């Protein structure tokens, strides 16, 4: 095939190339702040990719995904609080605890549909939020400081910012690959078919509840991993990470980028963070612009950024 590179592929490849050499650029221009933004962006992008798996491909609008970020971050922070810094314990704990929370809440949430599902996921995330707020031992409202990042027995030293950066980038690429494989698999086809018509999916013999629950658990575990990375990066965790507005922002990233497209959530996370940086540098009250922008995106921006890049906006 010798078709010219489409706009969409060009943006994707260009974006990846910039991300790959970002530490060199920020080093060369002595702008470490932009590296911080890039790391935050990638952590949130992983979370948005995980949300996209169930929202974009499975039609399950989870308004509680920030809970998994919080659980993942606390799975790094709480062991560190007791002096356990091994990443080989923290990371599996983050993903395992998130998966367990997803399994228990998902089993109840997925019995319901539509707007009930949206609000129940929201309520469960609030439950996790309030539980952490009221545990004084781990700082309650004030949160915990992680003074030492996860240790990987000498394999990779993420106290080095560049190492942490490439670890996050590798996880981002890995999660994109994972979602791509899942969506293309038989499992993924069942999920997508249940989004379009659940009754027919069941009629041809698939117990779609189990498939949807499995997807929900995978998504939760992946989002927990994003939280563990975010906790390592910020070095400070608090229940504020799982505030319900964070869940709303994740949904917005997915929809802004283009729900149900592989790279959409990454584009959405990038657009969201850049917009936030630009607007908040203009005015303290940046949300007075950001809020209406969000409303306008919903009203007029069908298909998201990904749809726009493909030239099929609308």
């Amino acid at each position, binding site marked *: 095939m010798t078709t010219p590179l489409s706009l969409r592929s060009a943006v994707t490849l260009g974006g990846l190339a910039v991300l790959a050499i970002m530490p060199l650029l920020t080093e060369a221009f002595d702008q470490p702040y932009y590296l911080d933004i890039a790391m935050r962006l990638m952590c949130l992008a992983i979370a948005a990719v995980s949300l996209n798996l169930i*929202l974009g491909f499975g039609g399950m*609008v989870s*308004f509680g995904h920030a809970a998994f970020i919080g659980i993942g971050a606390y799975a790094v922070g709480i062991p560190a609080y007791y002096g356990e810094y091994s990443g080989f314990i923290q990371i599996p704990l983050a993903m395992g605890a998130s998966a367990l929370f997803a399994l228990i*809440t998902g089993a*109840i949430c997925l*019995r*319901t549909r*539509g*707007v*009930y599902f*949206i*609000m*129940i996921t*929201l*309520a*469960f995330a*609030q*439950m996790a939020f*309030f*539980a952490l*707020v*009221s*545990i*004084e*031992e781990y700082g309650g409202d004030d949160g915990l400081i992680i003074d030492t990042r996860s240790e990987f027995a000498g394999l990779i030293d993420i106290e080095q910012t560049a190492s942490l950066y490439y670890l996050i980038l590798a996880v981002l690429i890995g999660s994109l690959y994972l979602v791509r494989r899942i969506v293309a698999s038989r499992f993924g086809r069942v999920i997508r078919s249940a989004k379009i018509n659940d009754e027919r999916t069941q009629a041809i013999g698939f117990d779609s509840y189990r498939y949807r629950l499995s997807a929900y658990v995978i998504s939760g575990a992946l989002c927990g991993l994003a939280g563990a990375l975010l906790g390592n990066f910020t070095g400070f965790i608090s229940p504020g990470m799982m505030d*319900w*507005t964070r869940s*709303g922002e994740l*949904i*917005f990233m997915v*929809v802004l980028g283009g729900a149900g497209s592989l790279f959409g959530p990454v584009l959405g996370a990038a657009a969201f963070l850049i917009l936030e940086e630009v607007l908040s540098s203009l005015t303290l*009250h*940046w*949300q*007075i612009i*950001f*809020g*209406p*922008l*969000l*409303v306008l*995106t*919903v*009203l007029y921006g069908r298909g998201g950024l990904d749809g726009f890049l493909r030239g099929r906006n609308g």
Partner: protein
Amino acid sequence: MDWTLLVIQMLNGLQLGVLLFLLAAGLTLVFGIMDFINLAHGSLYMVGAYFCATIASVTGSFLLGVLAALPLTFAVGLVLEMLVVRKLYARDHLDHVLATFGLILFFDAATQLIWGPESLSIALPAFLDGRVTLAPGIEFPTYRLVIIMVGLAVAASLAYVVSATRIGALIRAGAANRRMLGALGVDVNRLFTIVFAAGATLAGLAGLMMAPITEAHVGMGNSILIVALVVIIIGGIGSVRGAFIAALLVGMIDTMGRAFLDTAMKLVLSQQNAETAAPALSAMLIYILMAVILAARPQGLFAPKGR
């Protein structure tokens, strides 16, 4: 068990319950007939509180503040419906959630821009600012008692309006089949606008009644909104009766949990464990209640039929 304390906590629970009902009623009515889910409902709660606080501080009269804030909140609801919400009815719930989330950000930022970051307090008039003796040894703040009575009165009149008036018949008809209602010659759009603004006014009433206790502050509606959502989920979305019963249930359980859970847990756990676990558990109590009810009845307690 200290019976005085129990009675007072029950009244506190009732007060939280009626407040939640005022919020939940608007949410559930709007959802019932327009299939629209409005996260910015909590912003109207906040707006009502700020209007009341401003007018009360200018005129020096809380009652004037209340009387002026209600029509003002109604007007905000009208404008909001006509500018934004109306365009969203045809969209799916994901779009509702996102757009109204954007509205929350806007309302919070705008409120902070107009009124500043500091919270506004409201001084109660002397006749509301005392305590009444309900029974020998049981004193309760007058103002909280007034909130309970206003809330119950609104609930009763709402039940009357929905079940026995023409507009109530239209609301019920709209919930059952709005296309048929339109085909019968009713201006459905106008009905939607009025119901939305009325729901906004109820939220504003809840907010301004709460303001003398908590002060009016930015984002005050956001956390109580989630509890109101839990209420309408438990009650069955679209059912006013369900919202009323669920609101009282949630208000009561939340208050009782916070007041007595640590005492109860000390009976079975050690002192220290109970003191650690009780606050976390009591904060989670209403969500656990919701989970249990939904596990048994996924559509809530009183879900309207045919939905």
